[in-house]
């Protein structure tokens, strides 16, 4: 069990940079997730940690050991790093039985025959594979193959696990179950784990900390709560959370000694506790963000639009089991609100209110969060 440190890592393919100057510290025993859309450099980073890819620049440390450094000309081969990797296509050896697949890393390390049998059996029991040890991979289901790949990774007790989209090829139901199993297993084994996914739900549910990457650049590193409640920029805010956060372009104006966000269709006062942070932005274009669950339907009021409330037309109502998603529209502004129940019908107007303390405000020029 070791920590993983990445310093100034850069890797370029041709002219496109897969990773640009990445710096990262992964703590001992942590479940760390690289999250981002495909082609953002997540897997490249993982391969650099495994030693399967040499970066153009930068260093990789496993605990106190420097394993990759182009500047100091250090490169420890993947065979000598105590790192196990699991691939998206599982990469289990098609000509070997389940037993031999799991035993392979032990065999090439020259472990005792009896020790191999003992550890493979224990691993198979842990993963519920004991009945399948004599089968060949083509006789297994997707979920079973996934567990064989996992077994091969954990059997040799590595210091770091690297998992590249391990759940991507499973069906939805199995994915949810495996997610929990995997998290539990990681807790039990306590092995530092680096996990790559493009699925924000996976990342949010499993990770101790998440790094959001885009185009080889780190957008934000933080716990799931931090990313959800305090996204550093528009990209992270939009990438995390389902349904997506609502974004509206607006201008900051000063009126009657108060700051207001003017989105043309509606105007909302800036909460006084955050006003000081915004003072310098008066007259500038901003982006306001609010999550669907922070919008409420106001029911008790009849007649004219209330203060802070926005009268909008219901476009679509999506029932999602425990709650409803209201797709709302007014002029060029459209929002999604998550509500418990509603009496409104499609085409009707409703009054929508928001929790101002849950509001996110981004600078339109830099896309960075102001609050």
């Amino acid at each position, binding site marked *: 069990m070791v920590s993983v440190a990445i310093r100034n890592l850069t890797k370029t393919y041709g002219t496109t940079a897969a990773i640009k100057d990445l710096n990262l510290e992964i703590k001992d025993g942590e479940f760390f997730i690289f999250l981002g859309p495909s082609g953002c450099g997540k897997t490249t980073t993982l391969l650099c940690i495994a030693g*399967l890819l040499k970066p153009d620049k930068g260093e990789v440390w496993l605990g106190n050991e420097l394993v990759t450094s182009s500047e100091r000309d250090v490169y420890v081969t993947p*065979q000598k790093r105590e790192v196990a990797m699991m691939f998206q296509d599982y990469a289990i050896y098609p000509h070997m039985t389940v037993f031999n697949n799991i035993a*392979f*890393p032990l065999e090439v390390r020259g472990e005792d025959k009896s020790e191999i049998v003992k550890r493979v059996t224990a691993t198979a029991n842990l993963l519920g594979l004991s009945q399948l040890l004599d089968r060949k991979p083509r006789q297994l289901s997707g979920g079973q193959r996934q567990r064989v790949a996992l077994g091969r990774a954990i059997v040799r007790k590595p210091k770091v696990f690297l998992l590249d989209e391990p759940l991507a090829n499973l069906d939805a139901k199995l994915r949810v179950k495996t997610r929990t199993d995997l998290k539990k297993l990681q807790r039990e084994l306590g092995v530092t784990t680096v996990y790559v996914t493009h699925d924000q739900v996976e990342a949010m549910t499993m990770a101790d900390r998440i790094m959001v990457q885009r185009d080889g650049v780190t957008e934000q590193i933080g716990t799931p709560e931090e990313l959800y409640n305090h996204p550093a920029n528009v990209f992270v805010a939009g990438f995390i959370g389902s349904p997506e956060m609502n974004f509206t372009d607006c201008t900051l104006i000063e009126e009657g000694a108060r700051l207001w966000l003017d989105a043309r269709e509606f105007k909302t006062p800036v909460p006084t506790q955050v006003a000081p942070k915004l003072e310098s932005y008066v007259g500038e274009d901003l982006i306001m963000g609010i999550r669907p669950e922070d919008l409420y339907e106001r029911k008790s009021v009849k007649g004219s639009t209330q203060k802070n409330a926005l009268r909008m037309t219901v476009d679509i109502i999506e029932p999602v089991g425990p709650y409803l998603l209201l797709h709302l529209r007014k002029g060029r502004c459209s929002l999604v609100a998550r509500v418990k129940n509603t009496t409104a019908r499609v085409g009707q107007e409703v009054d929508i209110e928001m929790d101002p303390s849950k509001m996110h405000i981004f600078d339109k020029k830099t896309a960075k969060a102001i609050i």
Partner: protein
Amino acid sequence: MRFPKPRRVTLYILLVFFAFLFLLPLWTCITTSFKPVHDVIYTTPVELPLSPTAEPLITALNIMQRPLLNSFTFTISAMILSCLLGSINGYILTKIRFRGSDTVFLFFSIGIFIPYQAVLVPLVLTMSKLGLFNHIEGLILTHTAYGIPITTLLFRNFYGVIPNSLIMAAKTDGAGTWTIYRRIVLPLSLLPFVVAAVFQFTSIWNDFLFGVALARGSEAQPASVALANLRGTTEFQWNVQMAGTLWYALPVLVIFFVLGKYLMRGYMAGAVKG
């Protein structure tokens, strides 16, 4: 493809006709091999022998015995060596790679297109210098070297289909380059090995030019050269020649019958890959 009935019938008639046409030489070869000299003169080659005899086959085998053994020795040795080396080359060129590996592959590809005739003189000189002229070892070396480009190409195409993640997984599992080849790549190579082996066996077995240039008239003379010498100098012994041809063709025929199925699959695999 389903044809309407009359077209299907025409198709079958055509196919049977062409099959018959292509099998005719083999048929005459078989009939003539069982004819005494008298029958060869008084019957057409297509007709069955009047008084069948195994005499020509025995005569031909007596003459061809040693050359056939020679051919077996160098064909099988060179076949195994060129397949093995081609497989290793293909593995290195696709899965390990190194600076300039594409250039190296280009040179291998060029090797396929060098005509035999172009290298004959330097080849004979080199073999004499090495002391391998008129030796089986010389033929093994030559055929192995000449087989490597085509087997390399074949294995390279096949290994392109093996997912890289398999190799990467083996690396993180702790296996070195050679262990990965032996434990992962080689066991997955049955199909290309069959294809390459059949291809190499037939082309080496059928070769005449290298045999005649490197070992004519010697102890190491291959069957193809011995067969040509069966023609004799004063009279044409058609029946013995045909019997010799039959002996000579037999191994290749057997191989095609036994492994033809795999061969088609192998060619297809290569074709789809492109």
